[in-house]
């Protein structure tokens, strides 16, 4: 046994280890939400621009999207047209969780760009977003008719994600 081969041998073992490690490394760009398959966290929040409150319990029995947005978020603006299109098709209602935002700015935004949401709970403190494990805006959750979180999309929604991930689930294919 050549002792000069030893470093190369140790290195080979290390490479094998790292290779296994890579395969198991979580892909951070699509962090699977621990909420998937679990009941949606419940909340009750004031509705944007009104004195009423909204509890997500009241959505019971219906599929809905929970879209986390804010006027301060550039990606949300990019996503907005896509949301309007989903709303116009009427397949699934969108609840717009307005996250850490200024109410006046949020209302102005909706007046200018159009409102895709059925209702807009305002999470000014960000506590609900914490319960939902929101990492950044925009994020979109899909909740089924039994109140179970079925899917989470991180970043701006795009047609590909909508057709391959959301629609099949809503239509009961996936």
């Amino acid at each position: 046994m050549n002792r000069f081969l030893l470093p190369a041998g140790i290195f080979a073992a290390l490479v094998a280890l790292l290779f296994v490690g890579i395969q198991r490394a979580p892909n951070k760009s699509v962090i699977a939400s621990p909420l998937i398959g679990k009941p949606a966290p419940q909340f009750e929040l004031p509705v944007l621009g009104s004195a009423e409150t909204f509890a997500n319990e009241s959505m019971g029995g219906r599929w809905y999207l929970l879209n986390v947005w804010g006027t301060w978020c550039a990606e949300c603006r990019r996503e907005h047209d896509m949301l309007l299109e989903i709303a116009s098709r009427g397949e699934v209602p969108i609840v717009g969780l307005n996250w850490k935002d200024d109410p006046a700015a949020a209302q102005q935004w909706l007046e200018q760009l159009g409102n895709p949401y059925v209702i807009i709970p305002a999470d000014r403190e960000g506590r609900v977003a914490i319960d939902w494990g929101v990492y950044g805006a925009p994020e979109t959750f899909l909740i089924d008719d039994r109140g179970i979180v079925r899917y989470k999309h991180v970043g701006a929604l795009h047609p590909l994600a909508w057709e391959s991930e959301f629609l099949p689930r809503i239509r009961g294919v996936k």
Partner: protein
Amino acid sequence: MIVELGHFALVLALLAALSQSFFGLVGPAKGQASWMAAVRPAVYAQFALTSVALAALVYAFVQNDFSVLYVASNSNSALPLLYRVSAVWGAHEGSLLLWSWILVGWALAVALLSRSLPVEFAARVLGVMGLISVGFLLFTLATSNPFERLWPAPPDGRDLNPLLQDPALAAHPPMLYAGYVGFAVAFAFACAAMIEGKLDQQWARWMRPWTTVAWAFLTVGIGLGSWWAYYELGWGGYWFWDPVENASFMPWLIGTALIHSLAVTEKRGLFKSWTLLLAILAFSLSLLGTFLVRSGVLVSVHSFAADPTRGLFILAFLVVVIGGALTLYAWRAPVLKSNAGFEFTSRESFLLFNNILLVVATAAVFAGTMAPLIADSLGLGTLSVGRQYFDPVFLLPTLPLIALAAVGSHSLWKKGRLRERRTGILVALGAAALLTAVLVLAVWEGAKVLTPIGFLVGGWLLFSALVDPIDRWRRRLSMTPAILGMTIAHASLGFFVISVTAVESYTRERDIALAVGESGTVGEFKYELRSLEFVEGPNYDALRGEIAVSESGVPISLLHPEKRNYWVQRQQMTEAGIDMQWSRDVFAALGEDLGAGRWSVRAQVRPLINYVWLAALLMAIGGIVAALDRRYRRRGEAT
């Protein structure tokens, strides 16, 4: 347009790097003088082109060009100019570009300063460096292109991670990379020597200043990172044995071993294959550090951009570079045997022990860093390794190492006698014992078991390092930069050990809940929260507290810790309030809002903590001074 120009320049830089490695490695093998003559121009071209690429990216950031995906993801129009520039290396893609630029910068330095080297040897060194450049440029262009466009362009960017909006962190990555990449020079020297099958004392002399300078950069880089973590993360510590910290520390330890082993190879022609192995290891650990940070294999607070596909690319690159070098080593190192003996207490033996202890310390850090990964790969579940492991396994080899240095730096080559220095060493030990007694008994209260040991070995090394200069001064002998540099580095290391011992032993810390007007005590210190007010910065607003601290009833500091809300990323950041006094830091950070106007306040008083970083800086200066020694340049002047 400028952005596309940058992208194009980077593609051309890859071609330049390819020709650099081809002419550099194939030229000497074929004995083609004209091919070897083409290596230097290829380096110049690669440097110019990579500089254009980097400048183009800086330009895109300064101009707020959010149609560039990387700029949109890491900058914002409200971001101050300094951070728009440092945002260039604020995430993965730009970091890689900076890395490539620094690598070719080192190659440029080698090209310019290697006129005295044999032509074939210089060509091979630059060829190996070109090969590393090829890997990094290919990686950048294929998986991490910073020039990618985003359409439609967003009105504004997502901002730089607020954690990185800090002057120390603007300078930390360039310094760290300069150190990491600097070891590529030592690596290339080692590979060139193995290819030629020739390794003499001259070789070690060429390599020493390069290794020492790279080591000095790495020292400063690690120091800056540690300093930043102290005041920016709001935890108040200076070292957390975080995987990313370890990733930078392991090459440093091996680099330190290499510096000492090179001394033996230069002076006595010994340890040849060992020196080669250390040169390969130092750079390999730098690359491995990159892999660990960038692949997401090890989860850490630092890994901002983790991506498995990138990890796979780096792993393949590691296999080529490290695997190639180690195979070359297994094949060639047996040829490069050194035959000479030395006595047990000679300088050679001391340096041998130095190397063994440093490698053992590195292995211990390595094991702790990799253990979670091993456990996960073998399906044993998740494992977290903290300071309960690292502190003892690291101190076990390093405390004896410090004591060894106190004695060993006075030993002689080949011979086992310490000569007249014995008195000096004992006087230094006596002085250290006196210092320990004063510090433990009179200055601070509450010593721990290791406290006197830390002070004693640290003090011993500090005073022992001064014996030689004092001796020379009394005998009117001159000091060479090499000896002066060694003295500074060793004395600073002793000073470092003393400072760390003080911080670890005598820190007073407590988390207290305070409302405005209330106060709480930490040992003999009283923290009083005077006020809380909102203030506004350029791209954030903040809650600013005013905390008055008094010691045994005497007011000593007024602190202004902040809790900042960065607008774009909606991230809360802690800006600690620190009063830097000559002997200690009085520290306060706002923790959590506990409701009803009460905040948790992290109150800490840490003696000597700033000297930990000052000592690291002095160590680096020692390295630079030693690298300036005239004997490294002598041959250059002769030709």
